[in-house]
């Protein structure tokens, strides 16, 4: 076996498993009178004993550590899962409470404002603003779109037919474009500030998870049905149905009941008039834009 043999490195690795130091030490000793067992003197033997001490301690520590960290990880995971469930329940409770309080406020407001004509005007305006913001429960005709994940592939590979956040986004965008007035995903009403995005494998609507199958309900004109299916998003999804086996089901609905959105308070964005922006360059551009319409 020579150094130039391309397989020599592997062969040496497989065959010469003994530290070459032993061989050399044995050769060095060949001339001396020391029997092999006592070669190296007492200092080497002491170091030898210390090494073994270290090996024993090291192995024990590592084994103990690996053993103790495995259940810890499981415990931590379990604790996190419980945390998530608890926080989600707390969030649900707060959302329900919010709806309740908002109802109370609405009733109180109606009682007070219906007394005067000016109040009635203000009430009408408020109602309009609230329904525009998706804060009221609504009912009407529309379409219901159901998106379903394709069944996982048998070979255990990546499921290309899984519904992604952008599939839901594109359907929602097409529905808005087709004139939808209110949309809910899995019973979560979309407001002006609602996001649809994915976090890992989960899809979040308004930061709350929604799960397969995804039901998108939209109240709007009857034309939405054809508009959606003929839109580029609709055609793309239809092609995914044949290519990847995901489920797309669109039906006309005579009556859909959509829940109110939870809404969110706006703290930084103030109505422009309050700052006199209408007199500024931006304001002039805004008025010109309004006049065009």
């Amino acid at each position, binding site marked *: 076996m020579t150094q130039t043999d391309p397989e020599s490195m592997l062969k040496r690795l497989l065959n010469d498993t003994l530290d070459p130091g032993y061989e050399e030490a044995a050769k060095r000793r060949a001339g001396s009178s020391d029997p092999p067992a006592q070669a190296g003197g007492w200092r080497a*033997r002491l170091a030898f004993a210390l090494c073994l001490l270290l090996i024993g301690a090291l192995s024990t520590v590592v084994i*103990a550590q690996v053993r103790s960290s495995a259940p810890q990880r499981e415990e931590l995971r379990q604790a996190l899962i419980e945390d998530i469930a608890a926080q989600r329940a707390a969030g649900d409770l707060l959302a329900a409470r919010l709806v309740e309080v908002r109802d109370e406020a609405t009733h109180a407001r109606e009682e007070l404002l219906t007394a005067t004509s000016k109040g009635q005007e203000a009430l009408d305006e408020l109602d309009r603003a609230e329904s525009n913001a998706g804060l009221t429960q609504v009912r009407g005709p529309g379409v219901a779109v159901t998106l379903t994940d394709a069944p996982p592939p048998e070979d255990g590979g990546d499921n290309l037919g899984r519904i992604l956040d952008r599939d839901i986004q594109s359907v929602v965008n097409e529905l808005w474009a087709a004139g939808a007035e209110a949309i809910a995903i899995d019973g979560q009403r979309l407001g002006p500030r609602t996001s649809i995005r994915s976090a890992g494998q989960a899809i979040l609507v308004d930061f709350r998870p929604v799960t397969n199958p995804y039901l998108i309900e939209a109240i709007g004109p009857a034309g939405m049905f054809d508009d959606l299916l003929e839109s580029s998003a609709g055609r793309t999804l239809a092609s995914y149905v044949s290519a990847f086996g995901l489920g797309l089901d669109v039906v006309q609905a005579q009556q859909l009941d959509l829940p109110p959105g939870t809404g969110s308070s706006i703290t930084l964005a103030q109505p422009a008039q309050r700052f006199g922006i209408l007199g500024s360059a931006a304001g002039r551009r805004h008025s010109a834009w309004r006049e065009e319409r």
Partner: protein
Amino acid sequence: MKGIRTGPVIPVLGLALGIAAGVLLDPSVPTSLQPYLPIAVVAALDAVFGGIRARLDHVFDAKVFVVSFVSNVIVAGLIVFLGDQLGVGAQLSTAVIVVLGIRIFGNTAAIRRHLFRA
């Protein structure tokens, strides 16, 4: 010191004391060192099996054992540390484990041949 036979008493006693110390003292290892401990143990195992084989081959030398053990552990740790710094720590750990594993296998095979003549 001449005349004292270095039988398996020292290694067995050392190992037993080490294990006892590890169990009883339960020393806590700094977090920064923790990733290198399993590698160190495999490197130590390599040195141990090398030592047993050398003894059966009648070429055992305590000094060589100590040097090979210490350098094995240090070099294996350094390689993995360097790999961590370069972002290939997991791959280099695998490389170290594979090479040491092959050596351990080779040495245990030689030990087996010595003990069972097969």
